[in-house]
């Protein structure tokens, strides 16, 4: 039967359970939303130049960009409007590489995207320019690869094809699929045969 004491005990139990739930609820929404650090760049700068040296201390790449973001935990560096110059061991500029943006993975692999141009800096070289959309460059081996349509221009020829495998160091460029080349000893007339 419901004596006053039993009623009191039930009330107490209800009170305790109520308090318990009450505490849990409040503990959830009082948690401070933590900032996901990995998505924020460690540093961000405008108009910055990054210099990369080879193990012997020779300057191998100079990378300037309008905006640079470095993400520490992923080791990724994002460049906006990158303008990269590569140097050979005699410290002579060999290639200038431009694109809309680039991602450097741990100072080793460079991905360039949109409107990528590799321009040969050596005078009267037979291969002047490589133009494509996306390119991956292994900065150590200077191997350049792309799975996109690629155009290669030289004073005496224009070549178009798919997929590129190039070596900036020993200056070879392979176009891997269905190549179409217009070649002419006096090259200037090659321009108009294309368009």
């Amino acid at each position, binding site marked *: 039967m419901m004596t006053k004491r039993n009623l009191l005990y039930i009330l107490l139990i209800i009170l305790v359970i109520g308090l318990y739930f009450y505490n849990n609820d409040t503990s959830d929404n009082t948690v401070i939303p933590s900032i996901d650090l990995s998505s924020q760049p460690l540093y961000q700068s405008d108009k910055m130049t990054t210099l990369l040296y080879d193990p012997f201390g020779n300057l191998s790449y100079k990378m300037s960009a309008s905006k640079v973001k470095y993400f520490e935990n992923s080791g990724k560096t994002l460049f906006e409007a990158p303008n990269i110059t590569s140097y050979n061991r005699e410290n002579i500029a060999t290639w200038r590489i431009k694109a809309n943006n680039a991602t450097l993975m741990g100072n080793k692999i460079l991905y360039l995207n949109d409107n990528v141009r590799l321009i040969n800096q050596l005078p009267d*070289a037979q291969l002047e320019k490589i133009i494509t959309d996306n390119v991956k460059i292994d900065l150590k081996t200077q191997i350049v690869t792309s799975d996109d349509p690629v155009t290669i221009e030289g004073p005496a020829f224009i070549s178009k*094809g798919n997929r590129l495998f190039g070596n900036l160091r020993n200056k070879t460029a*392979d176009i891997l699929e269905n*190549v179409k080349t217009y070649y002419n000893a*006096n090259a200037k007339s*090659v321009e108009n045969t294309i368009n």
Partner: protein
Amino acid sequence: ESSENPKINAMPISIDADNQQIDIQKNTMTFSGNVVIIQDNITIKANKVVITEIQSKEDQTITAYGQPVLFEQQVQKNDTHYKITGNADKLIYRVKQNDVTMQGNAQIKQKDNYINSNIINYDVQQRKIEAQSDTRQRVRTIIMPEQVKEIN
């Protein structure tokens, strides 16, 4: 009569191939796989083609390898139109000098007139043929008399 078509070597050359390698240090371009070269009225089909001295106008040379290399020239003379075809294991085209050299089982044909030899030299502009044999194999030429009048 040879001046009636423009100097062929100034014409641009188009080259289609499965793939191409450009080597700047050696100034060569190598095309491989179903290579088709077209320059004006000349077509060359080969498995592999190497262009050397690409930077020099004078001595750049196109060397084609095939089983065999096929060479074809469409000739238009007043109203007559005929084809000169050739094949060989190897074909060397010195562009500036308009000079084609076919080496190894070389044959050049115009309608039913054949020339078989080890080496055949052919001037693409004057359409002059010169066959030599550096091995004991003799040069064999078959000329159909009634067709000779049309050729020249």
